[in-house]
């Protein structure tokens, strides 16, 4: 386990989520779940982030923003789609304005289903993302 997975900083973006999953993400930061135990910080800044946590089914308005944020995160980076809307579009999948999941815009590494997602599932998803992050760092170093 290298420093990369010991210090994962999150960027959370709400791509037209109903706020259900967003509240659960914030719940994970409260004393009950306290994700800072794993060195996780909610940065709110793509330049500092390692893990991109996206909620919502992504609509026409915010898919540009989503792509832009993804491009601004330096490698190695991991995308976690949180909630069923982010994973597949959920019940909104066939709406005229919904892209149908985060993976229609940017590559997603970990899917965390649920409506809304439970903090335990979210933490498990992030821990899974740490494994992916570690692989990506190794791949990046091998490339050098």
């Amino acid at each position: 386990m290298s420093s990369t997975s010991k210090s994962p900083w999150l960027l959370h973006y709400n791509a037209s989520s109903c706020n259900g999953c967003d509240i659960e993400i914030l719940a994970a930061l409260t004393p009950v779940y306290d994700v800072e135990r794993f060195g996780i910080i909610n940065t709110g800044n793509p330049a500092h982030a390692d893990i991109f946590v996206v909620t919502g089914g992504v609509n026409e308005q915010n898919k540009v923003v989503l792509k832009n944020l993804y491009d601004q995160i330096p490698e190695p980076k991991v995308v976690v789609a949180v909630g069923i809307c982010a994973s597949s579009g959920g019940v909104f999948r066939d709406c005229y304005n919904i892209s149908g999941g985060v993976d229609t815009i940017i590559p997603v590494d970990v899917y965390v289903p649920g409506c809304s997602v439970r903090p335990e599932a979210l933490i498990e998803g992030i821990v899974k993302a740490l494994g992916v992050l570690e692989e990506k760092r190794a791949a990046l170093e091998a490339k050098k």
Partner: protein
Amino acid sequence: MDIMFLVGAVLFLILAPIFGGLLTGCDRVLTARFQSRVGPPFLQPFYDVAKLWHKEKAFSNPVEIIFTTAYLVLIAFSGAMLATGGNFLFVVFSLTLAHTFLILAAYAANAPFSHIGAERELLSLMILEPILILLAAGCFMVTGSFETYNMLILGIPGIVFLPGVFIAFIAVLTLILRKSPFDISTSHHAHQELVKGVTSSLSGRSLAKVEIAHWYEMIIFLSMILLFFAGYPVISAIVIILVFLLEIIIDNVFPRVTWKMTIKSLWLITLVLGVGNIVILGILGGMFL
């Protein structure tokens, strides 16, 4: 003697970031405990910097490499100068120059948050400078020179002559340790108004350098407390620990102090206690010294 100075400087350059990182780790754990959380491991700041070092090199403006490196080098330089009992005015000037480079790094990025952060960093320099100059003036009035070495070998501890300057310095320390004002520059709160302000456009190694420079800075400013208690190492150590705990408590009790409130209160404290102390020392000077 020269060899001793060199050894002192090298020791400082090696040990200061280690202690600075550990202090930051303690800070984060204590803050978490205050909020009834478990908090990160003690070594978390080191993990963070190591991770940043391995991130992709992505720059909003490549000139930030020069600016952030200059910031780190100058902060380390002023710390080494202070550790070897050098000229206090030089220490103050090179600290100012270091901060100017940080501000330039923030201005180099074409990003609004970064620019506002740079402006707020200038404001915090405006708050920091007067008290440092007053401290330098105080040193000169007590010892007759700007050499910190003379302050350290003074028979009577400096706090006897400079109690007002000491209190004003402790008050300003909240700002220097990037604690309380949540909307100034880059306070350590997870979510603050400027999304990390001055460092918002820095990533990877540039951010790591700023973080290491901050560790140096913490040690520099905490060790300035030694100037007030020279000759009493145990008391100095106790005071430094108490001051550090006080800063963490202030940070947690006042999480929503704004930059306007900070400027008003800290300038008032500096003016009344700092300048007042120096004036009284000037008037009474002939009697004691």
